[in-house]
């Protein structure tokens, strides 16, 4: 399930922020914030997507590098908010 979640998030990021790029370049550990792919506006858009898609609520202080810098860390954060996503 967490793989499915990761893939969905990856699809969103590719479609929204990296159209035309090679999806295989975006791995589970590609740095998203430190790599310049997610700036503040993109991070907010991503957070809104995650909230709508998975029915979770984010707080402002959670929009940071620790939580959003890679697909892995995003999935981990989602699972911490909604453990059912791990099954």
């Amino acid at each position, binding site marked *: 399930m967490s793989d499915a979640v990761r893939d969905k998030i990856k699809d969103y990021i590719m479609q929204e922020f990296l159209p035309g*790029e090679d999806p295989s370049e975006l791995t589970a550990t590609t740095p998203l914030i430190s790599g310049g*792919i997610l*700036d*503040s*506006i993109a991070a907010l858009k991503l957070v809104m997507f995650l909230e709508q898609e998975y029915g979770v609520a*984010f707080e*402002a*202080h959670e929009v940071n590098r620790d939580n959003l810098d890679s697909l892995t860390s995003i999935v981990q954060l989602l699972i911490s908010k909604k453990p059912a996503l791990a099954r």
Partner: protein
Amino acid sequence: MHSAITSSAIGAPASDATQAHGRITLFDFAVIALQLGLVLVLFRQFQIESTAFLQLAAIVFVAFAVHAFLPLRMRLPFFAVLSVVSVPLAMGLSNGLWILAIGSLFIAICHLRVSINLRATALLLVAALLAAQRATLLPFPWHDAIWPILGSMFMFRLIVYFYDLRHDSTPVTLAQSVGYFFMVPNVCFPLFPVVDSQAFRRSHYSVDARQTYQRGIDWMVRGVVHLLLYRYIYYYLTLAPSEVTDPAQFSQYIVSNFLLYLRVSGLFHMIVGMLYLFGFHLPETHNRYLLASSFTDFWRRINIYWKDFMQKVFYFPMVFALRRFGTTKAIAISTLLVFLLTWALHSYQWFWLRGVVLFAWHDILFWGILGVLVVVNSVYELKFGRRRSLGKQVMTWRSVVVTIAKRYAMFWTICVLWSLWTSESIADWISLWSALRGPYTVEVLLYPGIVLAVIALGSIPMPKAETAKTRQEAYRAWALDRAIAVALLVGLIAVSIQDVHTRLGTQVATLVHSLRSGHLSRLDNAKLERGYYEGILSVDRFNSQLWEVYSKKPSNWLEVENTGLKRFVGGFAQADLAPSSVATTKYGTITINRWGGRDKDYTEVRPPDTLRAVVLGPSLVMGWGVDDDETFERVLEDRLNQEPLSPLFKHVELLNFGVPGYQPPQQLVAFDKTSALQPNALLYIAAGREMRRSADYLAQVVRKRLVIPYPALQAIVDKSGVRADMDETTSLKLLEPYQSEILKVIYGYLVEQSINRGIRPVWIFIPQARAGSWQEETPAVLKIAQEAGFGTIDLSDVYEGYDLGSVRLAEWDDHPNALGHRLIADRLYAAIAANPNLLFGSEPTAK
């Protein structure tokens, strides 16, 4: 070469990954240590920052050698202890202990076992108390000097630290807290990047040690390069607004003005580079901000730590609070508020660093305009997105041209906005634009051409190890980085050696020599003088080197304006010294005699067989900073009486009529006043920038609508078109072409009146006790003096062989001290002895 960044829990015991990151082989250490030795040599050769910084850097590099081989769990505590020790080392024991005590109080309050709200209240109360003390509303037992450093350590980092305490439950160790707030080398830098507390903790040995240390060295070298470029621009390219009279100068002004920011980016690279030596793999502070292609791009590239701080503490919370009104509105309003807060926090920073609140309309205008532009850009990006890439971007000729064009337009827009921000006033900024009506020559293409070339070169994609696809690519990128860093390091050191740069030609040698030290530019020297002469100093830009000199000045530093010695008399001279007054200062007694001169008493009638010379000049002549008996005039007078140089006179009297703040036009009034005392000689002391100061004073007189009682000077004012309702920049621009003529009139009057009254006129040049380009007018002024008919003595090298710090009162006050005055007196005596006729003449005069 690039290791994956692991995310070890902050505060948890180091993971296996971090343990591995902390190791370094002896060979790698030796390579790093060798480079650090060269970096220290580089710092020394170019006198980077202060002596205290150089000493601290040496200690830090030695500490690195110990730190690199400590067990990982001991390194952060070691860094914390080093940081704590660095404070009294750099600030002195008393000041250092006060900083540590107040800082410890803040840290302790943050970790009290009470609710977060109570802790916040306690912090605010302590901060309010300190603010009242900073504003001198309440007394404080420590020295003024601690405020800028205490402020730079806590004014922003406390905010983000407390924010993280509130939202991040990960325990913070004592070493992390202490190391974060007191982090070396903060004690040497009032301007310090706002290091994020989570980034500080997260980054500790998050990447391989060798890579981390090497990047630290690269960034320190990059920082020095920025600082040297800054020096070149600061010394050679900056113009005063009144000097901008044509389009070529306009572009030079706005470009050089913006590029002074290289000082900030240089310092921040050096500072963070130093932190890398202790394992902190922090984010970059700036990212090629000259190549920004949009306003949002500019905001993301320049002072990234500030952007991250605002984003974390203010922007995201505001967006989340406002998003019920719609995402676009939330983003737009939050962005505007961030810029409003940036303006407010700059004033807040200014308060802690300078003790006064900065409020200037052009300041507000700059942040307001930039904020609106970033909002528009953000909304556009929200709707239409922006180009991003996972690796190398596919480039076509069209995309290259469009990118360069965007960057070019952005650069000039920022230059214009920056010129508004750094103007003295909105009126001054508007006045600048009149230069575009000036003559268009081929020189107008110079700066636009250079900027285009730099942007085009900067737009060439460079290989990066972080985005390399293969090991070979990563290695090539790494090797290129190493080659550049080493070439710069070795090349700069080599060219700094006198035997090397003198072989490269006179111009190169002079350039390198000037870049080897940090001193005030000619413009800032002029501002420093105005600070003396006018008792005001609008030092209001953080990247100003002048501000850094002044920030060391204690608030209770004695100014002549505060002694009650000067009185306002109205008229052209406006002020003089109050007769028959005495002031006791920490320098000694200042006695003003009944004639209004800082001197012992003299009879009104000149005694027989006496050479009586009036000595005119500014505070240097009056002897600000020394006792009555220590002025060069008094020392010289005593010696001329004890060791006579002429058989024509039995006695010598030197009457000191120096007045602090007097400019050359005011000396006309001083000279006329002294005629009643029957002098037979005049010693006119020129202290530098005579032409410029004369024009400045006339502009001031016109603005104040004072009568000019010297027809020749009034004629020049009429010819120039200066009017009382003009702003200062415009007045100075109009008078600038007449500077030399103004001084010729002044000197001509003094000589003519001297001859008419049987007075022998002697002109003496005494330099400022400060390195820099202040003396650029001296040859021209000497020529004017000689052509006017003065006998001349040039003491330009009076301080040669002496460290300037040993002959002046302080770094921020270059009045000569007692030693300085003795040197002047000795040299003057020697000059008169070499040519006694200059002062005494060759024939007896009428007694």
